[in-house]
Each structure stands twice: as structure tokens, then as C-alpha cells.
């Protein structure tokens, strides 16, 4: 399933809500959580991460990974969690509205 535009940020913020992660961990978290249902090119995480860092939603710090290697950890800032709340409620409202429409009028040609 292709990702709807603009939802990547929301997913990343959601991932970071539980704890600070580096890029690879985020990719794994997304894979596990969605049972690989979403096809995301993992490289696309990086422009998104840096963009959100610039906006102040997430902060980046060097840390030591489980494998005892140097890795850059991203964590949610206060502004980031505000944004997460805002974006997820907007997303849920959107999904709800679309679902209502689909329920009211079943698509033609469905057996």
C-alpha cells in the first residue's frame, strides 16, 4: 500500500512518542507496527527527519546504540508532541469522514 502524501511525518512523530530512536529503529518500528503493510522507502525518512528538526518538532542528539555504535537519536520536543496531537486528530477526523461516505454509498461494481 502506497503512503498517502504528508502522512510520513505523522507516523514518525508517533514512533518517537514512545522513546528516542535513530533512523534505522524508526524504520523497524514502522515495519513492525504496520506488519509491513506500508511500503516506505527507508531513505525518505531522512529528509522528513531533518525537516522536522528544523521546525523544532524533534531534536537530534548523538548517542550510543545497542550495538555500542555511535548513532544519531531523534526525540520528540514539546512542540513536536503538540504537533502530533494536532495532526493525528485531524487525520482521524479525515478517516472518519471518508469512512462515513463509503458506508453510505457502497461503491458500484462490488459483488
Amino acid at each position, binding site marked *: 500500500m502506497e503512503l498517502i502524501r504528508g502522512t510520513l511525518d505523522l507516523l514518525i512523530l508517533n514512533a518517537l512518542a514512545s522513546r528516542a530512536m*535513530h*533512523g*534505522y529503529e524508526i*524504520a523497524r518500528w514502522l515495519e513492525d507496527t504496520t506488519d509491513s503493510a506500508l511500503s516506505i*522507502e*527507508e*531513505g*525518505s525518512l*531522512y*529528509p522528513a*527527519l*531533518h*525537516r522536522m*528538526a*528544523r521546525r523544532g518538532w524533534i531534536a537530534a542528539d*548523538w548517542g*550510543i546504540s545497542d550495538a555500542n*555504535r*555511535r*548513532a*544519531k537519536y531523534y526525540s520528540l520536543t514539546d512542540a513536536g508532541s503538540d504537533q502530533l496531537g494536532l495532526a493525528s486528530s485531524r487525520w482521524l477526523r479525515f478517516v472518519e469522514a471518508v469512512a462515513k461516505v463509503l458506508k453510505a454509498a457502497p461503491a458500484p461494481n462490488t459483488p
Partner: protein
Amino acid sequence: MGWIPDRYQELRRLLRPESAEEEIDEEMAQHFELLVERLLRSGMSPLEARAEASRRFGDLDAYRSETRAIARKARIRTARRERLQTWLGDLWITVRSLGRRPGFSVAVLATLVLSLAGTAVTFTLIDTVLLRPLPYSAPDELVVVRHPVPGLEEGQEWNLSAAGYFFFQQNARSLQGLGIWSGTHVSVAGDEGAERAIAALVSGSLLRVLEARPALGRLLDDSDNRPGAPLTVVLDHGFWRQRYGSDPDIVGRVVTVNSAEREVVGVLEPGFGHPILDAQLWMPLELDPTARPVNSHIFQSIGRLAPGTDRQTAERELAGFTTQLPELFPEAYSEGFMDQYRFGLAVHRLQDDVVGSLELLLWILVAAALLVLVVATSNVAGLFLVRAEARRHEMAIRSSLGASVGRLTWHGASEAVLLVTGSAVVALALASAVLRVLDAAELESLEWITSPSVSPGAALAVVVTAALVAAGLGSLTRALPVSPVQSLREGGTAGTTPRRRSVRELMIVGQITVALVLVTGAGLLLRSAINLGRVDSGLDTDGSWMASVALPPVRYGGYEEAGRFFQQLSERMEALPGIRSVGATNAPPLSGQDGCALIFVEGRPLASDERPPCVATPMVAPGYFDALGIPVRGRAPGWSEIDAGEVVVSRAFADRFWPGEDPIGRGVKGNGDEPPFYRVVGVAADVRADGLDRPPEEAVYFPLMPIEGAPLWSPLRSATLTISTEGTSQENLAAMLRREISALDPEVPVSDLRSVAAVVSRSTARRSFAATLVGTAAALAVLLAALGIYGLLAYLVGNRRAEIGVRMALGADPADVLRMIVLRSLLLTVFGLVAGLVGSVLLSRSLESMLFEVSPLDPATMALATALILAIVLLASVAPARRAAAVNPVQALRTE
């Protein structure tokens, strides 16, 4: 264990921006490797794992460059924010350091605020009055045409005659249009009684020349000027709004002006006004091109130059026409008229006519403000130099501790920038407050030069000046070398280099020069004002009043009717308690109406090349001399002799024409060759009716009624009443006048009740204004110069404590030390005074026309000004000198 590389990385990132990009590479590469490892663990071959990782990761290069671009932008933004924070921090340091030295800051602020505010005010006035073009399209093309007559001053040039106007208008190719006008007071009837208004009587062409446009209806045209045309009027926009409540249906309505009904044909567009007159009504002159031409030059003119034509060309063409006038109109100009009068033609700029004599006053003010600005900025520069020198030691220490030169320079300059910016803001606020006060005060005869707010041009001038001052002060700070080694070696206190000291001394000399020029100028103006105050106007100002009335010509067409009105009015008024006498005239003293008429004296034939004298010929009703307290030797004609051909002459007139003889019984007449003569029955004491600074007026006071023959004046209708009272307040008098006049004729408006004392002081308002302003500027300059010299000496003494200590240890007397310091300041002062005297001699000539009974080179004023400055300088030197003399040698050497 990990923090050293971490810190190292962080430092590296701070120092080398490209490392941030390397980090991105590292981060993404690591991710990729982890992905590969994971796939390997799931049992893929290395080749398969890499291919699968590439597929999952996507285009590594594309993502990398996208991310790098984002990071780069973020870095630029952060750097900018950090720079701003540093800058604000430095600014805050500057504010705090200024706050710690309130003396310095207040001195700089006050000096700059006062001088910049002065600049703003004077530049606004210049901008408003001189530089702003008249509010008409292509105002440079607008000119005024008049006939200069040899022997008369410029203000007394003859105006145009109707015949001359028609001839010029039809034939002049250098003008694209020419219009004529005259002003008059009229009474406009209304529900609440008559109202006095100012009317411009104009040719239709005048409105075309000024390119007026109507807001409603139409304007006047040439057909309105024809004799017998329906009576029409055009309203000024403001008058229409005020008096008729912006009635949209006004066009076609009939209003009663001077008892005649006139149809309103239009309303002028808002903002349009007469250039000279504050006209509320515009009415057509009655002009008949076919009428018999008369030698009556009563119309003022405004013309518009043809495109591409200059004033000189127009003047040449019209002057050529002027010489033809006697041939063209022999009925109007007798044979030999031109030989006798030789009147010529001059084309003036309308702007010059409107601004008139204000120009000189304004330039004087600007000069004064600029001179003060020079003194002020040089003083501020001196203050900054002292501070910079004093801080060299501190700067050297900070520099050797690693502060960058740029940052230190900025810190020094930021003080200047901050103080100058602050001063400019406060100065502009102060200037607009001053202008509002001036504007609200509605100074008589100065209303032209007020403006309610600082003009944009003046504000720009202040900002530019402030920027220049700030730049100058900033570079002053930068010019000081901050070489730590040198400064620290000097030991910090001996920071004065001889070169810099001589710069300051030169500034002091300059300040004293400027102060002396200003004090001399102010002194001359002040002495003129005092001299003028001593002049006896010849009028009794105690309980004397003037008021204006206007009789409608329709019912007061003849001498009889007009005369009867004034006789009845004065009889009724004089019967009231508190009223002593009541008179009337068409030309009250000090009203600025200083025209003249030709007078022939009996038994004094004119030589062939001699012109008859032109003197004032006011028309006065009985009671006039009593009301103004002018003593008359002999007698003044009363109401019973009003038509007996009796006149009073002024003493100045009698002395000129009958020196040492008795004027009583002599004959004088106006117009032309036909008798009869009027008989002199009294000689009135002299009155300075043209202004206190002018010689007593030579006048022949004609009665209200002419004798048979050619009358000099039309019946007295637009008149000034003169009233002397005893214990009557202005309110009571106003009420009495209104009651008595409306009992006689409710359609006659009375207005503008003013005391004669106010009229007299108003006539000198402009001079007092100039004296006050230049005096203020001079006081400011002297104060600043004194502060400057005090600052310099105090600073020198402070710096030379050690040297003084040595001298005194070697046996110098405190008196010697005192002398040394005072002599130093005296030397500077003498240089400044000599330069100042030279400057005064050169500049005060330009004041000449503003002076009264004092020469521009008046030695007493110059001596006094010099002495004043010398005294103030000595006073300013005493404190530092005494401090020097009190130096304790032991202590001075120990601190060193």
C-alpha cells in the same frame, strides 16, 4: 569514556559547517549497513542482501542531497539568529554602560535633541513656505504683472488698468493667460443677520489662469464680466460647507451679497484657494472692453507664461506694450504723461509675491539653527573623544584578553548610534510639539509660516544629519588605535596625543566663533526690538479700539447716505456711557495699506521734470483724531463742516511743503488740473502709520464728503471704526456696537474688534519673533560653547595631574598653575573671538533690513557680545583651573 570524541565531534561541527553534511552521510550509510546486516541474518547472500537493501532504502544519493539541502538551510537560519542575539546582547551592554554614566549620556542627548529639533522646525518652515510650490498646476509659470514707477518702492508698484489688461490679454504672446482681481469685504445676508465675508472680484480669465475646477455647477467666465450680465457668485468650498452646510442644491440659489441678489452658479473644488486673499466668495468684476479707458491702475493681476517662455521675455514684450499705452489711450493718459511718470513694467513670480518678506526671516532662522547644530555636533564629538581616550586602557585590556577588534569597534560605535538615534526620535517629537504650539498660537502676521507637523523633507533632513553625526562619531571611535602593547606601555592615564588635543582645541575655537556670530546677530535684533519699543506710534493706545464695518453699496451708493450712517452711528455711540468718541476711516494706521495718491500743493508749481508728491490720503470722519488720541493744532472739521472742503494735514507733510510757515489756510488737492483746492484747517501730530520702523507718515486727511470737482475716493463703505472708551470692556463695547449698528441697519456687519494696543504690537510681531528665535539660538550656542570649553579644560587638567604635580613639587606656585590653565583657554577664546568678529562683520549685513536704528556693524553690540562670551569662558575655566591649582603633588605622583 564516550564524551571526548562526542565533544570533539560537536566542536568540529561548530567550527566546520561541512561536517554537518558529513554527519548526514554517516547517518544514512549506517542505516544502510544495519539493513544489510539484518537481511544477511535472515539468510540472504551478501549480493542479494545488498540488492534488497537498495530496493528498500530507495535512491540513496537523491535522499542524501535532499537532506543535505534541508540541513544547510537550517544552519543558515541558526547562524542568523545567533548573530542577532549577539548583537542584541551588545546593544544591551551599551545601554547599560550608558546608563552607568548618566552625565555623559544626558549631555550628549540634550545637546543633540535641542539642535536637531531646531533643525527640524526651521526646515519644516522653509519647506512649507519657500520650497513647497503654490498649489496650482505648473506654479512656476504663474506671474504677477505690475507697473513700477521710478521713485516708488517695489511694494508700491502700480497695478494694471482695465484698458491695459484687455490690451495685454489680447496681444501678449508671451502669456497664455492673464487675469485680474481685487479684494473686498462684503456683507452676506443670512437668517442670523449679516455676516462679513471676504470676496475676490475677478475676471473670468483669472480662474482659467489658476486652472480652477468646480466641485458643483460652473465657474465664472468672461460673459459674467460684461456690464448688465446677471449677477453671479461662486462659493469657496470651505465657505459652502461652513455657511451652507454643504447644501447639494446650492447651485441656482440666490444669496444676498451687499444687498444685491446674486445667483450661485458654482462651488470651487476643495483645497482650491486664492493665492493671496482668503476669499470666501468669488464674484465677477464688471469689465467693459468698449468702455472709455481711464488712468486707474486698481487691478492686481495673475498671468501664466506661455510654454517655454521665461519671465524676461514676457517682461520685454509687455514693457514694449506699456510704452504704447499713452498713444493707444490718449483719453486716459494726457500728453507728456509718460515723460512725467515713466512707469514701466515688471513681471514677478507669483511665489515671490506670496512669500514676500518672510524669506529673509526664514533664512536667518535656518542659519541660526545650522550654526547651533555645528556647535552641538562638535561638542558631542569632543565628549566622545574624551570618552574614547579614557577608555583606551580598558579597550587595550579587553583586546589583549581576546576580544575581537571588530566587536570592540562596534561596541564603541554602538554608543554613538544608540545616542544619536534616540536623540533624533526625541528631537522629531519635540519639533512637532513646538510646531503644534506655534500653529495653535496663530501668531499675527506669521500665520503663513506655520505648519502643524514636521514636514517629510525636514524629517529626512534630521535623519540624514543624525546618520552623518552617528557615522562621524563612530569613525572617531574607530580612529583610535587599540594596540594593547602601546596603550598599556603608556600607563593608561597619559592617553592624550598632541594631535588629538589640537583637534579639540580647534573645535573650541570654532564654537566660540559661531557663538559670537549668533550673539552679535541676536544682539542687533534685540536692540532693534528695544529701539522699536521706544518709538512713539503717535497713537493713544489706552482704551482705544478699532472695528470693521462694511456698508452694502446698493443702499449706500452716494456720499450722502454713507456719511449719514457714520454721523448717526457716532452720535448714538457717543451718547452711551463709557464711550468718548467715535470716528471712521478707510485706511487705519498700521494696517499695511500704505498706498499713496498724487497731491498738488497750491502755489507750488511743478518743474517740468518734477512729479507731484505721492502721499497717504486717508478719508476720515469727525471724531477720528480724538478717538486715536492724535492732537490737532488748529481744528479738525466736524459734521457741520463735513462738505466745506476742509482738510487736516500731518506735521510731516506740513514740514515738507511749508517749512517754517503756517500751513493753516493753504490749499491742497488730489486729481489733476481742475480746481478747487481743499483748505488746510488743522495740523495733526505725526503718526507712524506705515510701521513703527518707518518715518512718520506724510498724510492729507480728507473729509467724508468731497467738494465739487473730481473726488479722490469713492464713498466710505468698507470702513474701520475708531473708538476711544473709558472703563468699557471689550465684551461691552462689542455688544454696544452690534446693538447700535443693527438699530441703524441690520444688514451692516461689524467684525474684528481689536484694541489699538494689539494693532501696534502686531505690527512688530515679526521682528520680536526673529529676535526671540535668534536669541534662543544664541543662548544655546553660548551655553554649548561654555560646556565645551569646560569639558576640554577639565579633561586636560585631569590628564596633566602628574605633570602639574611635578611642577609644583619643583616649586611652582598654585597661582602659576592657575594662570597656565586660564591662559590656555584665553588663547583659544581670543582666536575664536577674532574669527567670530570677522564672521559677524560678514554676516550681519544680511540682517540689515531687519534692523532698526542700529547699524549692522554696531560697535557697542559687538563689544558687548565679545565681553559676554569672554566672561562666560572665564567662568567656565575657573573651576578646572582651581582644581589644577589644588593638586597635591605627593598624591598626584603617587597615583601615577
